[in-house]
């Protein structure tokens, strides 16, 4: 039976619900009902900025940035910042939209694609053009394309860029007399080094050569497939099918599983948790190498041992790193859109030298990304690692069901894979079947 779908006006729906509630006495509610246009921070001179909380050091930088902006805009714009835990962040944005009081500007992540799909985001291309953020000589504009969801306009204003790096514990390398990783390393070199760096006492491993780290997540693992000129989906924007059963993708999956169960140089998820619950695998000092997001650098700075980074190792002679743009979205219904864009523009231009100094996010502007201020105090190998951006691909999938795909298809299947409860071919087929159905649904 085909279900008939009728559009219902939100007001009609809510008034219907209200009327139904009224039958049991809800007219009393009416007095409490809010006016759609009241109460917003609105005003051309004041904006509400929303971002998620990362770590105490990054949060402190966010607050300092806001203060610097307010100082620079004194008498013109007054910005207030709200930092929320990530698991409450999207709920809050959605509730604000639902209450017709959207935040004036909020930090992007892939969930905001759903907001674009529903026509809630402002087309920022004219503003971005006017602000000269599209100058090829100043900004890496070749990285912008994935954010042009309609093929021509940007619906987010970028300000920073992130990638993956290969962390290693220098102390453990020195102790084992193993040469440090560099940009010539292949995954075979990693296995050889990891074997030397894995320490066993009887049947118990007390130090692991490697942790699969973010290669256990779809976007990290996919870098091995990119190196073989394939990917997990047919296209990043509105994919129509998963193609994990492509033998090259199966090979990527099998390679990671083998690191744990064939070469035995990396812990299984259960072993990792035992080593590092609430501390983090690399942070425990019992793991020599770990591929992970470069944003970990800020929090790893507090570690008591010496460590550094290298570019991701070559897989079958090739390296393709993921990248992510960080930036801002402005709701179409925002009441202070100009002031909000001023904040985004200021972050992507005036604030870039300070962002380089803060060492939390990698600045978008070319000059700051490789500036002395940026590199000073950063770990060895950082400069080499961010050069990967020249040959990188977006680490996102833009689809309305993308979270469900990650949570219900990728997540549980990879959990089983890394616990050796599924063979790579089985897992690939399972993900293709379920994932493609979700993408079509």
């Amino acid at each position, binding site marked *: 039976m085909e279900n008939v779908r009728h559009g219902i006006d939100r007001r009609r729906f809510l008034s219907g619900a209200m009327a139904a509630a009224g039958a049991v*006495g809800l007219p009393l509610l009416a007095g409490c009902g809010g006016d759609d246009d009241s109460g917003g921070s609105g005003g051309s001179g004041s904006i509400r900025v929303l971002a998620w909380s990362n770590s105490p050091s990054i949060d402190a930088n966010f607050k300092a940035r806001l203060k610097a902006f307010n100082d620079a805009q004194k008498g013109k714009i007054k910005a207030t910042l709200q930092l929320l835990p990530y698991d409450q962040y999207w709920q809050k944005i959605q509730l604000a939209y639902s209450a017709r009081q959207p935040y004036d500007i909020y930090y992007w992540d892939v969930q905001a694609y759903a907001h674009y799909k*529903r026509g809630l985001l402002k087309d920022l291309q004219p503003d971005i053009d006017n602000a000269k953020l599209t100058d090829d000589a100043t900004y890496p504009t070749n990285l912008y394309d994935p954010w042009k969801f309609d093929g021509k306009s940007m619906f987010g204003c970028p300000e920073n860029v992130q990638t993956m790096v290969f962390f290693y514990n220098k102390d453990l390398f020195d102790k084992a007399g193993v040469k440090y990783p560099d940009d010539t390393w292949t995954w075979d070199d990693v296995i050889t080094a990891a074997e030397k760096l894995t320490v066993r006492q009887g049947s118990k491993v007390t130090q692991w050569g490697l942790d699969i780290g973010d290669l256990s997540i779809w976007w990290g693992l996919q870098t091995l497939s990119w190196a073989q000129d394939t990917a997990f989906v047919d296209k990043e924007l509105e994919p129509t099918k998963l193609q994990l059963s492509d033998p090259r993708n199966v090979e990527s999956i099998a390679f990671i599983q083998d690191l744990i169960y064939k070469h035995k140089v990396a812990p299984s998820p259960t072993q990792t*948790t035992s080593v590092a619950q609430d501390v983090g695998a690399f942070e425990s000092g019992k793991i020599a190498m770990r591929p992970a997001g470069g944003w970990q650098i800020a929090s790893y700075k507090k570690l008591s041992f010496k460590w550094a980074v290298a570019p991701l190792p070559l897989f079958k002679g090739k390296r393709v790193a993921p990248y992510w743009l960080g930036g801002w979205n402005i709701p179409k219904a925002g009441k202070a859109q100009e002031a909000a864009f001023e904040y985004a523009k200021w972050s992507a231009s005036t604030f870039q030298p300070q962002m380089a100094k803060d060492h939390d996010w990698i600045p978008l502007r070319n000059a700051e990304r490789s500036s002395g201020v940026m590199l000073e105090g950063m770990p060895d190998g950082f400069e080499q690692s961010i050069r990967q951006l020249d040959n990188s691909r977006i680490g996102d999938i833009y689809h309305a*069901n993308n*979270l469900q795909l990650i*949570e219900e298809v990728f997540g549980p299947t990879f959990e089983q894979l890394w616990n050796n409860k599924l063979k790579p071919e089985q897992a690939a087929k399972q993900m293709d079947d379920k994932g493609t159905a979700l993408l079509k649904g």
Partner: protein
Amino acid sequence: MTTTSTPPRRRLSMRRREAIACYIFMAPAILGLLLFAIGPMIASLLLSFTEYDMLSAPQWVGLANFQALIGDELFHKSLRVTAVYSLVTVPTILVISFILANLLNQKIRGISFFRSVYYLPTVISGVAVAMLWRWMFNGEYGLVNTLLDKIGIDGPNWFQDESWALPALIVTSLWTFGSTTLIYLAGLQGVPNEIYEAAQVDGASRLRQHLHITMPMVSNVTFFNLVMGVIGSLQVFAEPFVLTGGGPNNSTLLLPLYLYRNAFEYLKMGYASAIAWASFLIVLALTLLVFKSLPYWVHLEGSTEERNR
């Protein structure tokens, strides 16, 4: 100067004044119920027939959400996980609470201290208790595996192991026996001492006194605890959310977690409302079943006279 005569004030009768006072006192509770319980329930019922993402207007889809539930493998899995969880936790908590309440009903020195100690876990926040259990069940350094190791058992990595995550979660939930124990204790203290004295005169052993006096006399309390336990077990959220997030491989995906995912992560508020109503219907059916069984095992004071009348 003119004088105006004021009409005599009509005095309200005592009965009417009492009624008004009564309504004023009741108003906050009734308003709270209407605004925060009945209103949202009606709204969620309407939403369950729509596709609604909180960002755009709801689309009427009729019974599509409920039809989708029938074929939803994860919904079925979450039902199975919830059923196992409830079937184990509810009776176990009842038994533990009953035994504990009996022990706490003794007239010994320092009994108030013990009563406070056993109730303490109920006062601590669910998340804090969850974090505590997370460490207790740590595969490498946890207290549970350390103790198992002492008797030669190599303990699993509880919350990370698909086969052991749900049993571990069930054990953590047994910690919350405080309220049930307290209600049992109140029930036990209401059992007249004369009945025990008469039984002792007749030569009844302690076990027989428990089986034939205590248990029937507190059966109404058991009934109340059972109903509340069933309802509560179908609403557990904080502990699985903090400890496992529903994993590994959805082995601890309790119904409220699946509802939360759909509502607040996938923005499928209509579908989540359908799950909520399916859950409500299950609770209702189970509660009715328990009520139906009431005459067969619950001793109600005066029920014999009622029947003989």
